[in-house]
């Protein structure tokens, strides 16, 4: 399942939008016949994502689909986007170790 993040907006901001996006993904995935385990987040043509949105969205997906692997693509041309996702990933990893 590939999710095109550009369809959620070119600038992805705020925790509330991140939570709303998770709810939308649930609708999309539940209505999709593709049963592949991976969820691929395609950030192509997304301009900016803030840590608040990314944290809420990615963590929300992991909590909703704990057995699916979340993969990222489409960030090659956007260094800032890669940095934000790395920050969120590191925070998530540090938090997992604390548990």
């Amino acid at each position, binding site marked *: 399942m590939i999710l095109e993040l550009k369809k959620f907006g070119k600038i992805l901001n705020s*925790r509330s939008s991140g939570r709303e996006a998770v709810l939308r993904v649930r609708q999309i995935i539940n209505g999709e016949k593709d049963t592949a385990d991976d969820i691929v987040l395609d950030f192509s043509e997304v301009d*900016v994502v803030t840590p608040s949105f990314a944290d809420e969205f990615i963590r929300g997906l992991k909590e909703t689909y704990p057995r699916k692997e979340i993969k990222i693509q489409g960030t090659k041309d956007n260094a800032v986007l890669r940095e934000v996702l790395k920050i969120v990933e590191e925070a998530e990893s540090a938090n997992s170790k604390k548990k």
Partner: protein
Amino acid sequence: MMKAMDPHIEFLYQHISEWIPAGTVNFSHFTFMHPWDIGLVSLAIVKHQAEKGDGNIVLPENTDLRAYLKRMHLGSLLHELGCTSAADLLGAIQLTEHTTMNIQEILHCRYIDEFSARLGHFEKMFRNFGLDEEDAKRAVVIVGELGNNVFDHNLGNWPTNFSGSIIAAQNYPRLKRIEMIIADAGVGFMGSLRGAFPDLKSDVEAIKKGLSGHSGWIGVRRGNGLQTVQRWTIDNFHGALTIHSGNGLVQVDEHGIEARETVPILGTLAQFVLQYE
């Protein structure tokens, strides 16, 4: 090593009791205002109007500064706050409106959706100020996180009827320096963090706690946004992040952290300064 506060902020606070005396907000002697000063005056006016509501605001006598404040659309905010006399004084100034690429006029975003919708505009603004594409995106993340905090921590809990964030920015092309502020008349760092950290003793301590990545949300894992703001401001732009909340004033830059107690304000004033090539 203890570092010095930004010189203009240092000067402003040395004389703050002169321009926020009891019963009025009087900045008649000002001859120049940075975005920080506009944010501080705006919060003082919000507080004054919430307490007294008499619109007793004394504008600068300096005509160039008055024209600048008109250009910055201070009149709209004054109107909204019920300071009609002061707003009318600015409104009467004859000014040829022309597009200037070096300012972001005072913007009051009442709701987070309004704020988020402006981020695309801010990206263009940063490009116009002189940042390259990557740095403009980075600056949008910084302003986005600061703005998110305003709404996340005050939703449903604004101390007065004035909600939302006040935003303003100024580019100084010769200095290659951008100053941008986000002000809110909210609960402040202490109000936000006290529930999770009841042992906090001062606003300075609360600001430092927030800057170190701790969140006031109980039962919800959050944080990190302010740490990213700090790190990117300092590491990527050799800039500074300054926060005044309650009576705490804290500034962080590549030389370290400077903190002190000063006059109390309603809510929080945050500024990031970006130096660019």
